[in-house]
């Protein structure tokens, strides 16, 4: 049965439903019993201390403990913020990403890292990371970038049931966004299947996470100018639904990629690279990247707002693809 939920409630529902469904699922993280960030509300009361673990401030330790637990048949969910992942990079990269391949397929690691990206709210350089491109560059992670409550819930449920290390990059700028969500198996959203929240014929805008609502606003504005924009939300970056992107570009001949992460070696770079190689003859204009400027996130709002993509920047890029 469908109901309305905000993004962070949808995540909470996914965790509860999967913990009810499978006893091997448990969750660990900092301050989760008191649900400081909202997504773990009610878990302690429902599932008890053994399945809802508050951890010390010890990311390398508990990110790695989740790996150890997953190796012997548990299905851990780890809650964290993107900015704290750096502290645990050894466990993420040297262990979680590599173990299965390195051990010739003996290791199975059904572990989900939920990493919230808080940016755009005056959190400054240390607390505003959008780090998914770095993990795209490292083989071994499935990477979720949900932009709606439906996808935040559905992709997380799929990740918890998946048998590989997954990282859910949950977009803090969307935490209060509301939308319709399903329940139970009906809520599952498969990996590697892009969503097309708006169809159009003139320009394709591939938008990632928090850039999706910006792209939709831009598409509405541009409609008044007589420009028909198709918005594609890949929903997962690994695996990436490149067919959906290539098919759209085959129709429109023009591509803008909107990505809240830093623009160098970004998801946008990878998507542009794929289209320039595999969709070159469909293109009628250069591909435009609208990504974060290559600078650290400044604290003061007057500077911070200059860094990220915006609907205005996306509209400008779309117009640029239509210039003769």
């Amino acid at each position, binding site marked *: 049965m469908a109901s309305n939920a905000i993004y962070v409630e949808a995540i909470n529902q996914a965790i509860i439903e999967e913990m009810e469904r499978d006893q091997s699922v448990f969750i660990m993280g900092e301050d989760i019993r008191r649900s400081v960030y909202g997504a773990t509300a009610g878990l302690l009361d429902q599932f008890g201390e053994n399945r809802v673990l508050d951890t010390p401030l010890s990311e390398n*330790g*508990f990110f*790695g403990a989740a790996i150890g637990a997953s190796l012997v048949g548990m299905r851990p969910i780890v809650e964290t913020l993107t900015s704290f992942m750096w502290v645990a990079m050894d466990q993420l990269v040297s262990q979680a990403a590599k173990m299965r391949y*390195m*051990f010739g397929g003996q290791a199975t690691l059904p572990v989900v890292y939920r990493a919230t990206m808080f940016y755009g709210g005056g959190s400054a350089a240390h607390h505003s990371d959008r780090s998914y491109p770095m993990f795209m560059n490292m083989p071994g992670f499935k990477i979720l970038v949900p932009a709606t409550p439906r996808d935040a819930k559905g992709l997380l449920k799929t990740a918890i049931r998946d048998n590989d290390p997954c990282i859910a990059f949950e977009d803090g700028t969307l935490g209060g966004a509301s939308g319709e969500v399903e329940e139970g198996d009906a809520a599952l959203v498969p990996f590697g299947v892009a969503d097309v929240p708006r169809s159009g014929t003139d320009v394709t805008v591939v938008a990632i996470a928090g850039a999706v609502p910006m792209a939709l606003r831009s598409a509405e504005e541009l409609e008044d100018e007589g420009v028909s924009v198709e918005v594609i939300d890949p929903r997962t970056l690994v*695996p990436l639904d490149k067919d959906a992107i290539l098919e759209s570009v085959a129709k429109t001949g023009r591509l803008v990629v909107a990505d809240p992460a830093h623009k160098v070696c970004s998801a946008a770079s990878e998507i542009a690279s794929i289209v320039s190689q595999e969709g070159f003859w469909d293109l009628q204009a250069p591909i435009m990247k609208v990504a974060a400027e290559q600078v650290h996130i400044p604290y003061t709002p007057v500077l911070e707002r200059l860094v990220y993509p915006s609907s205005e920047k996306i509209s400008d890029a779309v117009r640029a693809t239509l210039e003769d």
Partner: protein
Amino acid sequence: MENVSKEILVQMLERMWLIRHFEVRVMEVHSAGEFTGAAHPYIGEEAVAVGACAALKDTDYIAGNHRSHGHPLAKGGSVKRAMAELYGRVDGYCKGKGGSMHLADFSIGILGESGIVASSGPVAPGAALAAKCRGEDFVSMVFFGDGASNQGACHESMNLAALWQLPVIFLCENNQFAVTTSYHDSVSVEHISDRAAAYDMPGVLVDGQDAVAMYEATREAVARGRAGEGPTLIEALTYRYEEHSLGLGRVRRGEYRTQDQIDEWRERDPIDVLERTLTSQGILTQEECDAISKAKEAEVEEAVEFARNSPYPEPEELFDDMWADPIPAP
């Protein structure tokens, strides 16, 4: 040595000889160019892993480090599959994808060796957490060196295991040198086992050249773990006869340790120590000990032949084993 069965004592001697011959043969075939890459000889340290693993069951877990051949062989791993892995062949433990530093056998609880110092640390409390959550009685043990004992991952793991009272045995193989740096120059306490006090768990200093002492200390730690009494830190004081890694022969011994020191430790060779114990107690004769050595030498030679005859993986196997639930390659 009370309550140590003859069966355990003989098995320990067999496994120590197996590791010794394995390592000696690895050094020979590596220098002959039969395979490439780093490999870290365990010669001189055999009593540590063998004594410790003798106190474990197949259902208990171990994780290890770059000095990686001794741990799986001590836990009963296949010498053929280990050797074939060093040769990069399909019959190797990891089908040739891991090599010397990444031996693993999940079927008997060997959760894999890691090439990054201390990165196996957190895996051990993780596996033990599963034991606690599911109410099962297995324990997990992690082998790490004196160098790793300074890594944050090591301390974070000890804190987690002690905080949650997990059945973990932290087994520090203090072979006294991190490559060329003496532990006296890198560790702030006199004994690494002293650090257990910081986590309110028992810390035990053991003669790492004495397999029986290793077995007894580990058996006690395992019993505590199974009884729900939490983790133990065991420091095994031992010595690495060879250089840090094959291929590092250019690091002259004199630069960081003396020949006298090496000779002194060789006089307390762990195999000699165990054989003296067994013969003096009338458990085995020297001839029987020698026969065990010969048999293990032959077993290693068989493994070398097995490895040489095993095929290399096919090119189409490059992408295999990336995913448990496969996705299209980008």
